[in-house]
């Protein structure tokens, strides 16, 4: 069975699909961290809110694509509220306080979701055009998963274009490198932070809405996704797009192929890698600040 090309190609697609989902989440987290020096553990909770917003929007409008548009906006609004109410005041509070507050936020948001949507997992239908298997490079693979891969690649390309080729991108990079100097050069760093935070939240919401048809929306997804995402950020290096790309590919493929080749150790492998990276390159593989 293991000599089969189709088998390995399918597993490759599985790994790529997981990587893209991790990328959508970790890019927001890592840029927020790199730019604002802010540890937002509630990022996973925003992913969950995105999934529930997607489920509700899809049910109310009967349209998957509208849900895919509404969920990121809804999550961005939640993010703006959190920013105005809490995060703005915590900017200089030090990492320990930030971690405690955002960790507490997870529980608050999860319980609010449980009150509104209940404990039972909710499903979301895939759009008709993407349901069922599709043929790709000679292997039969779920069309919807190909769609996830495509969305991840598009977001990846768009972000790297914006960050490397536009003025806003240059400002963001300057802010990550040295925010005090960027402010001296006339960049409104605080406003930039806010814009980046909004984009990060919207991407978390998008990831949630895209994941809902595959994994269904449950209150536990807020914490389930948080640890893999944090591992991606730590392995890749804080604050860098290339780090997030590399980190999510590494974690996605290790989880997938670990599950295939040595299932007994699948859940440990990623942690082993994490420990190795922290020992050899404590700043991550591709940190933003060299």
């Amino acid at each position, binding site marked *: 069975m293991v000599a089969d090309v189709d088998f390995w190609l399918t597993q490759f697609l599985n790994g790529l699909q997981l990587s893209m989902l991790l990328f959508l989440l970790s890019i927001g987290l890592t840029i927020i961290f790199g730019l604002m020096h802010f540890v937002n553990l509630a990022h996973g909770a925003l992913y969950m809110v995105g999934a529930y917003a997607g489920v509700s929007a899809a049910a109310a409008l009967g349209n998957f694509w509208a849900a895919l548009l509404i969920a990121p906006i809804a999550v961005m609004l939640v993010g703006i509220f959190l920013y105005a109410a809490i995060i703005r005041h915590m900017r200089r509070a030090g990492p320990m306080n930030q971690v405690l507050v955002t960790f507490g936020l997870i529980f608050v948001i999860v319980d609010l979701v449980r009150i509104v949507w209940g404990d039972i*997992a909710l499903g979301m239908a895939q759009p008709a055009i993407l349901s069922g298997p599709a043929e790709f490079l000679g292997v039969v693979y779920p069309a919807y998963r190909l769609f996830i891969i495509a969305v991840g690649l598009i977001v990846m390309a768009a972000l790297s274009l914006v960050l490397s080729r536009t003025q806003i991108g240059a400002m963001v990079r300057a802010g990550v490198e040295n925010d005090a100097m960027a402010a001296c050069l006339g960049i409104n760093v605080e406003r930039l932070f806010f814009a980046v935070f909004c984009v990060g939240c919207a991407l978390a919401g998008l990831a949630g809405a895209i994941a809902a048809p595959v994994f269904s929306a449950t209150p536990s997804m807020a914490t389930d996704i948080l640890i893999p995402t944090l591992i991606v950020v730590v392995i890749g290096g804080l604050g860098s797009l290339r780090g997030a790309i590399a980190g999510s590919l590494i974690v996605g493929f290790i989880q997938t192929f670990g599950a295939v080749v040595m299932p007994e150790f699948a859940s440990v492998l990623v942690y082993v890698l994490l420990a190795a990276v922290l020992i050899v390159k404590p700043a991550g593989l591709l940190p933003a600040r060299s």
Partner: protein
Amino acid sequence: MKKYVCAALGACASIALMAHAAAAETKVGLLLPKSGNYAALGQEIDDGFVMALEEAGMADDFTLVREDSEAKPPVGVAKARKLVLQDEVDAMVGIVSSAVLGAVRDFVDGSKVPLIVANAGNDAATGASCSKYIVRVSFSNGQVNRPMGSWMAEQGIKKVYTLAPDYAAGHQMIDAFTESFTAAGGEIVGSEYTPFGKTQDFGPYLTTAKAASPDAIFVFYAGGEAISFVKQYDSFGIKKDIPLYGSGFLTSPLYVKAEGPAAIGVKTSLHYVPTLDTPENKAFVAAFKAKFDRPPSEYAVQGYDAARVLVEAVKAGANDRESIAEGLTKVSYTGPRGPLTIDPATNNVVQNIYIYETVADGDALTQKIIGTVPEVRDPANGCSLK
């Protein structure tokens, strides 16, 4: 005049007090998860329990103390101690997680407080580590899956691949199935256990299972994992070549709505199916739907039967911890899931196991019973109560 009124009021008050004291004499601790992954199951069991008390017209005869086990063993033990030592309950009901049951077992046995298990299926609880004070009305992991092995072999299925989460219940469910399936001449061509609670993407496992080209795949998944698994199984297009079988929790009425059309054609075995065509079940389903506006799941029935055995024991004269423990094992009746008795040898329930297929019913999904294995009784497994 004033004196008479006072006296009359006083008399009335004392009668009311006495009546109250006489009525609320059985104190029951409900130890169920109210938060975390199992919160939905805890609520179903609670709903079923309350409904049975109301149906018996004895809701006022029981005082309920609810505690959240959080489905965590240390929390479960602390809450069980609180219920027994501080609230001084006469009996405890609940326990969703087998790990919690394992953790409270010695305390329950030592403090001699009867515990009616309303979900946790750990085989050992009514096997090697059984207790006179632990009575299970739900199911054992082996009981639900053993009949499926022989049934599938009878259907002419030769090669099966199995999948389950990597924890005690997952292993016990698959072991019981494997044992009876291979004994009936079947062959297990591959088997995998996925990291419990950490697996959301079953893609890699499904691809590996498909590559082993079995006649069928048998799985145990419950809760959120069941929803993800069934949907992903369908999306990979495996269902039309390799049919999906499993433990009935996979397509429980509680989750089947979220699974949607992906669940159609999945065949599973369970101790209760809401479409069971008996007068007892029809009445139960109608009453449950009227009260909660949804069909009952097996968890609701477990809660219902937990209350019902307790009510029957109390009606038969049990009034303290010792007599309730004694009385519970003598209860026998035909309820929503069919005939139900407690096996005096293990204190585990003896019940029918139903094999059902999830089928489309218009836009909704329903369960079609395609086989019944009557009065399944667990072997003693090292338990020596009698």
